[in-house]
């Protein structure tokens, strides 16, 4: 029973994310953060790991995130053996992913009938004008809390007094930023390369300590 309730909740949370996250893979991040705060299924640091894995594996980022969260959540159910843990995780992954796509599949099946009218509808365009601004603002805010965790090592902005500025993280962030934006050729590299380099640097400098 406990499993069913958790899976139902998982489906519902991802259904909402699928309906309201507009504008690409990163748009799901603020919603996942909200889920993390409300349910405690995964931590904010887990979320950052999930983003890295989703960016470096095939498939749409939003779907990868849903699968990852679903797996993590499902496998936290008290299974008796690692095999059952993994099985509960796989079911969770499937449920979260189905939840994420349900809304959009229904909406597309409905609007496919009047494609052109929908695209040129002025209310749709006007709403999108607001939604785009909201989407960037939410992603930026989600980014801030990941910065707090990864670079300043604090959980919340209200803990700013105890922020420890980790110089190594700061330098790494600055180098990646410059490389991904200003160095020709290098900035064309796939994010997976930067993720792998960062992993190597993390190991060399014991950044997890």
């Amino acid at each position, binding site marked *: 029973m406990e499993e069913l309730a958790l899976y139902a909740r998982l489906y519902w949370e991802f259904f909402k994310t*699928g*309906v309201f996250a*507009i*504008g690409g*893979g*990163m748009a799901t991040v603020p919603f996942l953060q909200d889920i993390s705060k409300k349910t405690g299924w995964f931590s904010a640091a887990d979320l*950052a*790991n999930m*983003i*890295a*894995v*989703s960016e470096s*594996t*095939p*498939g*749409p*980022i*939003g779907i*990868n995130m849903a*699968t990852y969260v679903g797996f993590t959540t499902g496998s936290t159910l008290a299974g008796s053996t690692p095999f059952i843990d*993994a099985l509960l*995780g796989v079911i969770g*992954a499937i449920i979260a*992913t189905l939840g994420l*796509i349900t*809304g*959009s*599949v229904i*909406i*597309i*099946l409905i*609007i*496919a009938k*009047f494609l*052109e009218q929908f*695209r040129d509808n*002025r209310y*749709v*365009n*006007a709403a999108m*004008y*607001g*939604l*785009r601004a*909201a989407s*960037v*603002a*939410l992603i*930026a805010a989600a980014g801030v809390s990941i910065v707090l965790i*990864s*670079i300043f090592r604090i959980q919340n902005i209200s803990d700013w007094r105890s922020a420890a500025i980790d110089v190594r993280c700061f330098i790494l*962030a600055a180098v*990646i930023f410059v490389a991904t934006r200003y160095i020709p050729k290098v900035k064309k590299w*796939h*994010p997976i390369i930067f993720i792998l*380099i960062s*992993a*190597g640097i*993390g190991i060399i400098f014991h950044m*997890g300590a």
Partner: protein
Amino acid sequence: MSENENQSAAQPPAVQEKVSLWSLFWIFAKIGAMTFGGGYAMLPIITRELCENRDWLTEDEIMDYFAIGQCTPGVIAVNTATFTGRKMRGIAGGIVASLGIVFPSIVIITAIASLLRNFAHLQPVQDALAGIRVCVCILILNAVIKLWKSAVVDIPALIMFIVIFLASVFFDISPIIMVVAAGVCGILLKGRKQEQAAIEAASDAVYEGKTDVPVGKSANSASAEGAAAQNSPDGKEAR
């Protein structure tokens, strides 16, 4: 389901034999497994698989689906799969194609997640993840910079951005509430303005004797906001 297909496909591609649901699933699973990153990154692969290797879609249809995918909820890749599946095999096709495109993610991510779970306690893995999290900060920052150009197009949009950003950094407000509020603000702010723009554009279009305009340049020459917003993020990134 035939008369409502895209007008740009006025000459239907010969007779299309009925595609099996299984092959719909399989083709989209293949697309899902071959694309890194989603969004516009997968455009070339979708084009190759669906219009070059098969006569399932025209390039115009793909561009239309992408444009609609951007103003509907959900992942663009999944939206495109739903559209294509529906075109080929009706509602069941739409559902099967959507399941197909998410299938590889479920397999791959599940494998990686369970590996990470088993090794996460090791110190080198912890160190690597700490480094990766720093990189993720920059990836998010880059996503914000990229989206910023097409989203924050004027002062009211900037104000919305600031309000929503501050509200979600400092308070625990559900993102759903902010998304809905922003949509309503958009309609209140631009619904009427756009109406005038649309009327002007329509008269221009009549004057030029053209009624259908390509994606991305649709009837809003008079509204810079709309035009800027509809440009593909890809084009901007290329600079």
